[in-house]
C-alpha cells in the first residue's frame, strides 16, 4: 500500500516540480544580475504557446522546446531593453510584461485550442526504470524532466565557477564596481536575461507539450509568481532551487493524491498545503541570510561616465 503511494507521490512531485525548477532557475540568473523579473509568468506563457504551436505544425516536440526557448528569450529581451536601456522600473515593467505575455499568448494560441499533439513522450531509462518504486517514479519521464537537474547544476557552474558568472554576480552586487573592473553591466544583464528568458520559455514548454499536452489561456496559473517566491526560498542558489521546486511540486501532488486516496480532510485545506509547507520551511530555516540577496537587486545602473 505504501510503495504505490510513494511512487505516485514522487512521480507527481518530479513532474509538477520540473516547470517550476526551470522557471526558478530563470529568475535566479536574472536576479543574480540584479534584475527582478515579475514578468516571468508572461515569459512562460509565451514559451508555452510557442512550443505548442510549433509542435502542432512540425510534429516535433524537440522543435517545440527550441521554439519555446527562443520565444522566451526574445520576449525577455523586450523586458531587458526596457529595464536596461530605457531604465524603466523593474517591478512595474515586469508586471506589464506579464500581462503582455498573457495577451500575446492568448492571441497566438486561440486557433490552436483543441488541437491534438503527441508532445514530449516518456522515455523509460534503460536499467534504472526497472528499479522497484524509484524506477517508475523517477526514471519514466520525458526529456525535459531528466534535463532539469543537470541544467540546475550547469547554471550553478556557470554562475559560480566561470569568470562570466563572477562578473554577472558582481553586477548584481555592485554594478559600479563591476564597471570599474572593466565589465559592462548592461551587456552582462542582457546576457543573463536572455538566458533567463530561454529557461522561462522551456518551463512553459514543459507545461504545454509535456504535462498537459494542450494549450489553454493563462495555463501557467500563477507558476511564474511561485517561481519568483521560490528564488527567495532557494536563497538565489540554483541547487537549493531543485529542493524548492521538488518540495512545492510534491506538495501539490500530495494534496491531490491524498484526495484520490480518500483522506477525510477538506479539499480546501489540502489546497493550502504547498503554501503552508513553504511557510513552515521558511520558518524552520530562519528566513533569508543577510548576504543571500544580491545587494543591487532591482536597482538601475546609470553608468558611471
Amino acid at each position, binding site marked *: 500500500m505504501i510503495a504505490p503511494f510513494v511512487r*505516485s507521490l514522487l512521480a507527481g512531485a518530479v513532474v509538477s516540480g520540473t516547470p517550476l525548477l526551470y522557471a526558478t532557475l530563470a529568475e535566479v540568473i536574472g536576479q543574480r544580475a540584479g534584475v527582478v523579473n515579475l514578468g516571468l509568468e508572461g515569459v512562460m506563457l509565451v514559451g508555452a504557446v510557442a512550443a505548442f504551436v510549433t509542435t502542432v505544425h512540425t510534429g516535433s516536440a524537440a522543435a517545440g522546446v527550441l521554439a519555446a526557448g527562443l520565444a522566451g528569450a526574445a520576449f525577455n529581451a523586450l523586458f531587458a531593453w526596457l529595464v536596461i536601456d530605457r531604465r524603466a522600473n523593474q517591478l512595474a515593467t515586469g508586471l506589464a510584461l506579464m500581462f503582455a505575455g498573457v495577451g500575446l499568448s492568448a492571441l497566438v494560441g486561440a486557433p490552436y485550442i483543441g488541437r491534438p499533439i503527441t508532445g514530449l513522450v516518456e522515455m523509460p531509462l534503460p536499467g534504472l526504470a526497472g528499479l522497484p518504486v524509484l524506477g517508475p517514479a523517477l526514471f519514466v519521464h520525458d526529456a525535459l524532466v531528466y534535463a532539469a537537474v543537470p541544467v540546475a547544476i550547469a547554471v550553478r557552474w556557470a554562475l559560480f565557477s566561470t569568470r562570466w558568472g563572477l562578473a554577472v554576480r558582481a553586477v548584481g552586487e555592485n554594478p559600479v564596481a563591476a564597471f570599474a573592473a572593466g565589465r559592462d553591466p548592461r551587456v552582462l544583464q542582457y546576457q543573463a536575461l536572455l538566458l533567463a528568458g530561454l529557461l522561462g520559455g522551456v518551463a512553459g514548454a514543459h507545461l504545454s507539450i509535456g504535462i*498537459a499536452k*494542450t494549450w489553454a489561456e493563462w495555463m501557467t496559473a500563477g507558476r511564474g509568481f511561485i517561481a519568483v517566491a521560490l528564488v527567495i526560498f532557494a536563497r538565489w542558489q540554483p541547487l537549493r532551487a531543485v529542493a524548492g521546486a521538488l518540495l512545492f511540486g510534491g506538495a501539490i501532488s500530495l494534496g491531490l493524491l491524498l484526495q484520490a486516496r480518500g483522506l477525510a480532510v477538506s479539499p480546501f485545506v489540502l489546497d493550502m498545503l504547498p503554501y503552508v509547507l513553504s511557510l513552515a520551511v521558511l520558518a524552520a530555516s530562519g528566513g533569508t541570510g543577510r548576504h543571500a540577496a544580491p545587494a543591487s537587486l532591482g536597482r538601475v545602473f546609470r553608468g558611471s561616465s
Partner: protein
Amino acid sequence: MKARASVATLIVALLAWTGLVTAQPQLIVGILHIGSIADAGYNQAHAEGIQVMKRNLPEVEVIEVENVPEGADAERVMESMIKRGARLVIPASFGYLEPALRVAQRYPDVKFAHPGGYKRLPNLTTYWASTPEAFYLLGMAAGKVTKTNKVGYVVALPISFFLANVNAFELGARAVNPKVETRVVFTGTFLDPAKEATAANALLDQGADVLGVIVDSPITVVQTAEKRGAYSVGYHYLGAQKFAPKGWISGIAFTWGNLYTRFARQVLDGTFKSENILGSLNDDLLTMAPFGPAVPAEAAGLINAKRQEFAASKAHPFQGPLKDNTGAERLKAGEVFPLTDLGKMNWLVEGVVGQPR
C-alpha cells in the same frame, strides 16, 4: 505625432462611415464570458450558441466580451453594452447574477438572460439545463465498462451543482454495477491543465480505470486517461472524443443555440417573459455524445431505455432511500431530491470517496 494623429482621424472617419452605410440592426445582443470563447469548454459552448443565433437571425448584431471578471467589472461591461444599444444581455456565468440583477434594475427596458440563476426580475429570465440525468446515464456506461470498479473524477470545486453531478454519476454506475466507487479530486480551479493532469494521474495510480472531469475543458483529463490506457467521459466539449479514440465512453455538452435564438426572437417581437427555464437531455439544451467503442451494445440499450424513462418522468436520478458517504440518511424511501433544488445538494452519496467541503 502628426502622422499618428492623422491615422487616428482616418480610422475614426472610416468607423463613422461604416456606421452610416450599415443598416441599423434590429437588435443588438450583448454577451459576457468569464473566460476565453476558444476554451474547448464552458465558454465556447455559450459562444457557439450565439453563433447559431446569428445564423438563424442575421439581422441581430452581437457585442461579445471575453474574460470579464465577476463583480463591478461585469456591471460596467453590461452598462457599456446597453449604452451601445444592446437590448438583450446574456451574462454567461453563474457569478454574474448579482451584477446582472443590479444592472437589470437600472435598465427595466433591457432584457437579461442569466444561466443558472436562482433570482429573477421581470426583465431578467434564468435558464439552465439540468445535468444529473445525463450524468446518471454516463455513470451507467462507466459502470458497464470499468474493470477495476473504480472511477476517478477530476472536479474544479466542491460546489453543489458539481456534487450533484458526481452523485448522479455514482448512482447510475451502481445501478448497473453495485461495486463501483467514484473517487473525487478537487483541483481548486477551473483552469489549470497541468494540475488536472497531475490529479488524473493520482486517480489512475489509485486504481481508477475510468476518468471523468468537471473543469473548464475536458481535454487534458481525457488525454491523460487515453495515454495510460484508461477510459474517459467528457463534459462541455463533445469534440473531446478525438483525444480518446480507444477509451472514449461518452460525454455531454450544453447546446444553447436554439434557446438564444428564441430569446432574441422574443425580444424582437415583444413576447419576452421572465421565467425559470430548466432544460435537459429531452430538449435541445443538452446533448450527449455518441458512445465510444468501449461501450458494449447491451449497455447502450440499457442506457437508452433509462433515458426514455427520464424523459417520461418515470425515473428520477435521486430516488430515495439514499445515504451520503458518511452513512447519514439523506432521502427516505419514496422521496426524490428535486432537480430544481440542486443548489442545496451539499453532500456526496454513498459510494463516492471524497470530501464535499
